[in-house]
């Protein structure tokens, strides 16, 4: 028997043999894919290289809240506009989804039958309907809003139409920088007060009203300074001129549709994660803390949530990653994100499909790895500190 199989019966040899085989075949496959691609590109006279990034784009991007974009700018700038827009909808979406998800997760566990049933219906609906349909649904609703000439006016300064939500834009005049500095200083000192108060409480048991004093520092002090300096802030109001509103700040329906769909969809998943996290904390913890006379809100904040976070954070990270990657669906409603602008229009106008796709993929990879990196740091910081 042994002689028939020869060295194949040697476990070590077998393991090395198959691993080499798999790696070899993979390398061979990769080699043929790459060589065939470059061979065919050359054969079809399709130009390759990165020089197209410096060429003028030739088209306009309207939604670019952070960088001013003109049609004479380069494809490289199209890329940066796309990255910023992707980050904008991802970050705002993650924040909203987290807040909404936490609230809903806790409400789902409430003893109020109606509330918990409503959240249940919401969760099942939004996580079982494809995200793309939800984005299109929100967008279709938003473009059914009144036309720009018949805009709804809210509180005299906001205008709502199917071109977006227009609001006054703050204009910071000279002197406002002092107010900003005051706010920053107030934030730092609140942080320091918090640390000092905690230390003192640990040592002496005495409490300090951290919350109210911080509020006072952050809001009231800059506000007083603001009035002393003679209110160095004015607003530019949007005005209907010709075809559109001029001036003011505008939030486009494409962005709103993406933001709503992404955060509502992801919040459903997060609420389930939060629910699982809270339920993972044993009942005894709650009972014990009630026995020593803690308030309900304290039990939640000091006992339940810190322990639940250990269960919540790892799957929460993947929800953030999902949301970021799902933002690439913005193409469905013309949201000018990375895939739509650089991975779509630039790709199509230059024909450099492989280069553009490689850049877009590398960018999503970097964003995802960065999110993972920070979430892992946070995750480590909330784990049990074993002494």
């Amino acid at each position, binding site marked *: 028997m042994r002689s028939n199989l020869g060295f194949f019966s040697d476990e070590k040899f077998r393991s090395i043999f198959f691993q080499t085989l798999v790696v070899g075949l993979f390398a*061979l496959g990769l080699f043929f894919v790459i060589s065939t691609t470059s061979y065919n590109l050359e*054969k079809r006279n399709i130009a390759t290289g990165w020089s197209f990034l410096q060429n003028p784009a030739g*088209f306009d991007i309207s939604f670019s809240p952070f960088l001013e974009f003109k*049609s004479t700018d380069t494809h490289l700038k199209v890329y940066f506009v796309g990255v910023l827009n992707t980050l904008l909808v991802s970050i705002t979406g993650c924040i909203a989804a987290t807040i909404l998800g936490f609230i809903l997760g806790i409400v789902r566990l409430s003893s109020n039958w109606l509330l918990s049933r409503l959240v249940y219906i919401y969760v099942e609906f939004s996580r079982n309907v494809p995200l793309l349909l939800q984005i299109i649904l929100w967008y279709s609703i938003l473009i059914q809003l009144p036309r*720009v000439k018949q805009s709804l006016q809210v509180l005299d300064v906001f205008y709502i139409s199917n071109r977006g939500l227009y609001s006054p834009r703050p204009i910071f005049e000279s002197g406002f920088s002092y107010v900003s500095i005051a706010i920053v200083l107030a934030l730092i000192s609140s942080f320091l007060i918090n640390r000092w108060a905690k230390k003192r409480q640990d040592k002496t048991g005495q409490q300090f009203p951290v919350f109210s004093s911080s509020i006072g520092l952050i809001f009231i002090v800059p506000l007083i300074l603001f009035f002393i300096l003679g209110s160095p802030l004015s607003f530019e109001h949007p005005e209907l001129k010709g075809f*559109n509103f001029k001036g003011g700040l505008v939030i486009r329906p494409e962005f709103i549709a993406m933001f709503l769909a992404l955060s509502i969809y992801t919040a459903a998943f997060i609420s389930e994660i939060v629910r699982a996290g809270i339920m993972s904390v044993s009942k005894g913890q709650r009972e014990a803390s009630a026995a020593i006379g803690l308030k309900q809100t304290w039990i939640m904040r000091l006992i339940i949530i810190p322990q639940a976070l250990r269960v919540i954070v790892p799957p929460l990270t993947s929800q953030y990653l999902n949301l970021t990657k799902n933002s690439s669906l913005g193409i469905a409603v013309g949201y000018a994100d990375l895939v739509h602008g650089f991975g*779509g229009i630039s790709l199509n*106008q230059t024909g450099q499909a492989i280069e553009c796709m490689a850049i877009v993929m590398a960018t999503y990879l970097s964003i995802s790895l960065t999110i993972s990196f920070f979430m892992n740091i946070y995750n480590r910081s909330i784990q049990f500190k074993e002494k």
Partner: protein
Amino acid sequence: MIVGDFKLNKSIIGINLLICYREAIFEKRYLNNYLNGENNMKKLLSIFAVVAFAFSAHAGTLDDVKNRGFLKCGVTTGLAGFAAPDDSGEWAGLDADMCRAVAVAVFGDRSKVEFITTTGKSRFPTLASGEVDMLARNTTWTISRDVNLGFEFVGVNFYDGQGFMVPSALGVSSATELDGATVCIQTGTTTELNLADFFRLNGISYEALPIETNDEGKENLFAGRCDVYTTDASGLSSTRAAASNPDKWVVLPEIISKEPLGPLVRHGDHQWGDVVRWSLNAMIIAEELGITSENVDAQMSSNVPEVLRLLGVEGNYGEMLELSNDWAYQIIKQIGNYSESYEANVGPDTPLEIARGLNALWTQGGILYAPPFR
């Protein structure tokens, strides 16, 4: 024999083929044997080959089409007059006729064509990957597409230009009055670039609302999300004709660009390019010579030499193209000449109401001109 052109194929073919490809030298006979499964040893080897990505030798497109038994033609997602399903679900339009003409040239049968819809963005990858044999998709002939993207435009089947359409209630009479307007624009098109140039040149501003398909443009324009829709003037006429009340929309007089629209094929396959080019030219020449689908049979006994050459009575032009000798006769018989196709799909008597204009023959004040058939 050197077999040069390779493409990704869905079928899994053996690794031995890949090695042959790297050497880029092997007999076509060998390949045929291999593909027909006559060589069992090679077939056996292919079963052992584990590589999931496979490549098949890619002969001429004409042979591919003939072997497949039908033509794959890339068209728009639906643009009335150019390519859109009619009441009976049949694809109809100027571009659809172009596809059918090529199918007739190859198979003698206008139904031997599969229409594959493409968006402004997907059309080029679809053609480059071999998913379609040709595009007849109101595509503008530009140098970068012809040269850099690796395609070959074989002619022009519609001379167009970019225009603007606005609601008539807006009271705008010229595109230069559009300062500050929101403009719906199909991404990945030449019109997108022309638009930016036009507004820059006139020193006026606009907000672009990027859209993917003509239908999306229609929806956004009709909902008032954008003030203006810009695309080729023919496309605007088509969109206007599809509105519930066409009188509520007006196409502005400015034509801001040259948009020669024509069929295109992959660069490098000249035999196939010739078939598509001369299918189009045959329709134009037929109009020049006054041959229509009605009188084509009578013209077979004409005494005009060029008519006889076109209809395959004299000469062997069909054989030169590796087609049957009556290929042009069949195109005219089954599709009609250029004028017939134009009048039936986009002409003044159709909802699109586009006058011949530039698309009239060169002898009638237009610029439609085909090289001589000899």
